[in-house]
């Protein structure tokens, strides 16, 4: 029985890939072919859908916007979460446990609850329809997550490392930047991966906080699909293209994730 154990992950991956294959398959068909004929692969292979996306700025700027605010969010979240996670892991201070739990409760807040107040808040401070607004709004759930992940990794690093560095004459920040950050690089990689992931896939807040200038690609898709009477081929091509950045990110961090997961308490 042991010999056939590889069948389990293989079968699982095949099931995972089926809907994705269907989307890719449709993206190479024309809308009329999708609607009129059922086929497991494109009969009349076409790149028309992709061509439209890459030549029309209302489409491709959606990708630029999404990647821009996701990157901004990842940088902000991890930068502020690092010192906080360090403090939670190393120091005891007034109200630390309550504060940690309060941070986590924000990870539980349903985006649907906050959509309308967020719109009012960011309109009031003049950030509506900017990349910064979406990046800041997504810190609501990404900062708690980043703090949670990084705290686990930092607690896995022995405290002797800090003490030795001080004995060697390092100031706190010199130690933090030159020694500590490289030590927990795998943890930072994992935290960045999760921040990227949750910001990239979220749509409700991103859509609520933008109109034109910072509109995410996922929102562009919903609008065009309804006004043009469901251009399925175009929709499928746009959907396929939203999978690519994620796949690239996974490819680059795959070793970090395997190593990172093994190192930290996650």
């Amino acid at each position, binding site marked *: 029985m042991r010999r056939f154990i590889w069948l389990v992950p293989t079968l699982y991956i095949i099931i995972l890939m*089926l809907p994705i294959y*269907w989307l890719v398959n449709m993206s190479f068909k024309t809308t009329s072919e999708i609607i009129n004929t*059922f086929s497991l692969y494109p009969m009349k292979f076409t790149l028309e859908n992709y061509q439209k996306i890459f030549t029309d700025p209302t489409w491709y700027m959606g990708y630029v916007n999404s990647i821009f605010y996701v990157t901004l969010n990842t940088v902000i979240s991890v930068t502020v979460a690092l010192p906080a996670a360090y403090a939670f892991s190393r120091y005891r201070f007034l109200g630390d446990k309550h504060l940690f739990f309060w941070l986590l409760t*924000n990870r539980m*807040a349903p985006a*649907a609850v906050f959509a*309308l107040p967020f719109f009012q808040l960011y309109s009031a401070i003049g950030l509506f329809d900017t990349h910064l607004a979406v990046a800041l709004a997504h810190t609501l759930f990404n900062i708690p997550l980043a703090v949670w992940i990084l705290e686990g990794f930092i607690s896995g690093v022995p405290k002797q490392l800090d003490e030795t560095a001080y004995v060697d004459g390092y100031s706190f920040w010199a130690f933090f930047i030159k020694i500590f950050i490289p030590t927990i690089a795998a943890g930072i990689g994992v935290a960045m991966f999760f921040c990227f992931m949750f910001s990239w896939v979220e749509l409700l807040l991103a859509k609520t906080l933008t109109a034109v200038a910072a509109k995410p690609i996922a929102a562009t898709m919903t609008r065009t699909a309804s006004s043009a009477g469901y251009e399925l081929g175009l929709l499928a091509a746009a959907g396929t293209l939203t999978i690519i950045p994620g796949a690239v990110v996974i490819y680059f961090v795959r070793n970090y994730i395997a190593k990172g997961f093994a190192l930290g308490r996650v």
Partner: protein
Amino acid sequence: MNKTVNQKGWLFVAPVVLLVAFNALIPLMTVVNYSVQETFGDNLFFWAGLRWFVDILASPRFHDSLVRQLIFTFSILLIEVPLGVAVALAMPRKGIGVSVCLVFMAMPLLIPWNVVGSMWNIFALPDIGFLGWALNAIGIDYNFTQDPVDAWFTLIFMDVWHWTSLVVLLAYAGLVAIPDDYYQAAKIDGARPWAVFRYIQLPKMRRVLTIAVLLRFMDSFNIYTEPFVLTGGGPGNSTTLLSIDLVKIALGQFDLGPAAAMSLIYFLVILLSSWIFYTLMMRGEES
């Protein structure tokens, strides 16, 4: 780890507290504010007290959404956690297979949620989708846009497809962290695979599984975009989960007061159940 008492810790956490407080407290206070007032538009607000809370808690509509939400959450937990652990146990521990598995398995996690919804909507349509076509081809009368049972099947299948990999990744992390000595000791003692799982692997995975269950619990309670795109809460109201109902009231009917009251009840339900979950699982760990 023994921590030193150092009140400077507050300086380190200050940026996080400021940012999260800005994003969490101001909107939360807006919601609290709306929840106790009545509005007729034109920025006219009147004190309504706890009326909305009483109304919502007594309304059958809220009860139905809550029951549907609970059924959904517990179904996906019952499927995703055992399945995720099983796949993690069967995954290779070294070599190229690890990277291949990680890259492919993580893919559904990184697809925007509305793309997941529309992808599954099309994939499951009986006339143009592979799943709908295949099910009908083997003689099952399947149409998720008409039949509530089919809609539920599709909804749960979609969530299992989407999120089981998160459980796999976490469980796998727990597994690779077990030192080889444990397995060697078990081998010397002649332990059967089931005993190795029950007394070595499962206890060692407890912490990561707690995280996985908590994350899946919280996120499945918050789920909005995927079911909204897949079924729109239909057919009828059969797949209207809590957040879909909430957005219908808040943005569809623009009843700010009841929507805000419902938001707060909803948030409290999540907080309370997460807390109970957390306490129970942590108590289990200590004993």
